[in-house]
């Protein structure tokens, strides 16, 4: 008899589990060897607490009442629960905290799209270490994790979450207009972006071209000079920040995989400063992401800078399979 499970969830059978465990062990070894201690948090939290961390998504996608009438939610990532944990359990801790996790998270899915409602993440959070050193450390760990997973061709995109917000403020674009421009940038709808910018009074041909050109700048170090040539205070600030991070990475010998990408925007509400995305040529989807969220801990009452990343385990596993010699061919 067939007993269904909800779409977007799945069973794992021994052959796959064996490989997943191997991948998990390899990643956790990297995290532990760099001083990151593993933590676990409950899959279910108070909705109000999760919503505090990410007001934009308003807490979890799956909410329900407990027997006492409290509104509970399933976590949608580990960054917010760990911010909550740090504020509660390490409120007076000194020096940077290094935490890592291996956990399932839950997100809403759109029907018929093969999206996962429940998915596994492996990641780290570095709390109390500001940019650029903290950012560089997190990228180094990510770089080592990708190496341990055998994804030698994987690439880390490095961008700046504040660039366009500040650039638009500098150009005097605020309110609804700014939000709709940012929405176009986040989805990389360049046709829509040009149209939005054209519709704003006070944005000239030149400024429009600058915005569009900036969003397309991606590559090695030279990108920072190309950006600087386009001018502006916001650009200067973002490129200086990215430059410092990149230098710290070069000094640590961990810059090889990193591509600077000024058009990078992630849709999670809590990012500030550096943002990261991970790609592998074998897969059309992003393998993971992260960045700085210097304002997140403050929402929980501890004002500490923070950065981290999460890898989607199932996708990393999929990329591993494709990267095996002949892996993508005979399946």
């Amino acid at each position, binding site marked *: 008899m067939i007993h269904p499970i909800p779409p977007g969830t799945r069973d794992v059978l021994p052959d796959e589990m064996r490989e997943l465990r191997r991948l998990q062990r390899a990643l956790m070894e990297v995290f532990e060897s760099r001083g990151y201690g593993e933590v676990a948090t409950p899959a279910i939290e108070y909705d109000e607490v999760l919503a505090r961390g990410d007001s934009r998504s308003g807490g979890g996608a799956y909410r329900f009442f407990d027997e006492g009438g409290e509104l509970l939610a399933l976590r949608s990532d580990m960054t917010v629960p760990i911010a909550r944990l740090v504020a509660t359990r390490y409120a007076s801790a000194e020096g940077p905290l290094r935490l890592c996790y291996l956990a399932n998270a839950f997100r809403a899915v759109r029907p018929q799209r093969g999206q*996962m409602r429940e998915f596994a993440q492996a990641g780290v959070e570095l709390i109390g270490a500001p940019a650029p050193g903290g950012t560089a450390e997190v990228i180094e760990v990510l770089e080592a994790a990708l190496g341990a997973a055998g994804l030698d061709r994987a690439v880390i995109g490095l961008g700046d979450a504040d660039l366009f917000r500040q650039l638009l403020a500098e150009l005097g674009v605020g309110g609804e207009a700014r939000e709709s421009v940012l929405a176009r940038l986040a989805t990389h709808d*360049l046709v829509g972006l040009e149209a939005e910018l054209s519709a704003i009074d006070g944005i000239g041909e030149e400024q429009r071209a600058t915005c569009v050109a900036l969003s397309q700048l991606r590559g090695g170090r030279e990108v920072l000079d190309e950006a600087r040539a386009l001018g502006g205070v916001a650009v200067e600030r973002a490129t200086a920040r990215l430059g410092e991070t990149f230098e710290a990475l070069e000094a640590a010998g961990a810059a090889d995989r990193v591509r600077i990408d000024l058009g990078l925007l992630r849709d999670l509400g809590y990012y500030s400063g550096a943002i990261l995305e991970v790609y592998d040529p074998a897969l059309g989807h992003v393998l993971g992401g992260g960045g700085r969220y210097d304002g997140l801990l403050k929402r929980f009452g501890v004002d500490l800078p923070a950065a981290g990343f999460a890898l989607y385990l199932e996708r990393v596993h999929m990329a591993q399979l494709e990267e095996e010699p002949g892996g993508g061919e005979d399946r």
Partner: protein
Amino acid sequence: MSPEVAGAGAAGADGPLKLAVPRGALLAGTLDLLDAAGIDTSAARGESRSLIFAAGDVTLITMRPSDVPTYVEAGAADVGITGKDVLLEQADRMVYELLDLGYGRCRMVLAGRKGDRRLGESQRRLGMMRIATKYPRVAERHFESTGRQVEVIEVKGSVELAPLVGLADGIVDLVASGRTLDENDLEVREEIVECTARFVANRVAHKLRATEVDELTARLREATVK
């Protein structure tokens, strides 16, 4: 961002860029544009039943226009060309829209029977219009954003049939010359949006094959202006 696992394909860092080309109404304009951009499309112009054609430094993959976002999102094609109507209807597909190619211009409209007051009457007396369309999500968004209630009926074939036989009060459909509407005794009541062909890219290919994607975009932009 939420992880989408099914349908994840190889973005392919090696070999020529894979370009998804729409069959049907956009095909001729697409091949002409590619020729103008210096991509030899002669192989794809013949009577061949093949679906994949080599064209110099790119590989052309031909498919239904509505499949283009699917292939590009998954990375099975690195870049692609399709109509804005398709992109609007599949707005949840994460593809980068890089360029308005200008051809294949048509309008998404609300149409009803000539001289027929049914659309307005249904709205007034039943509080609801019945709209047949191949673009249910575009239609829903349009009526929602204009504060009207509708029952959207999705049909796959000739939408013009629906109001003629009483399945719906009106239709939301794509109109190029307006001849099909006219011949079926229908007329445009509202214009929703103008659509043209667009150049789209997979987000990973856009990052990992940046130089090639940018170079192709520039060539297409130049050919579009010509």
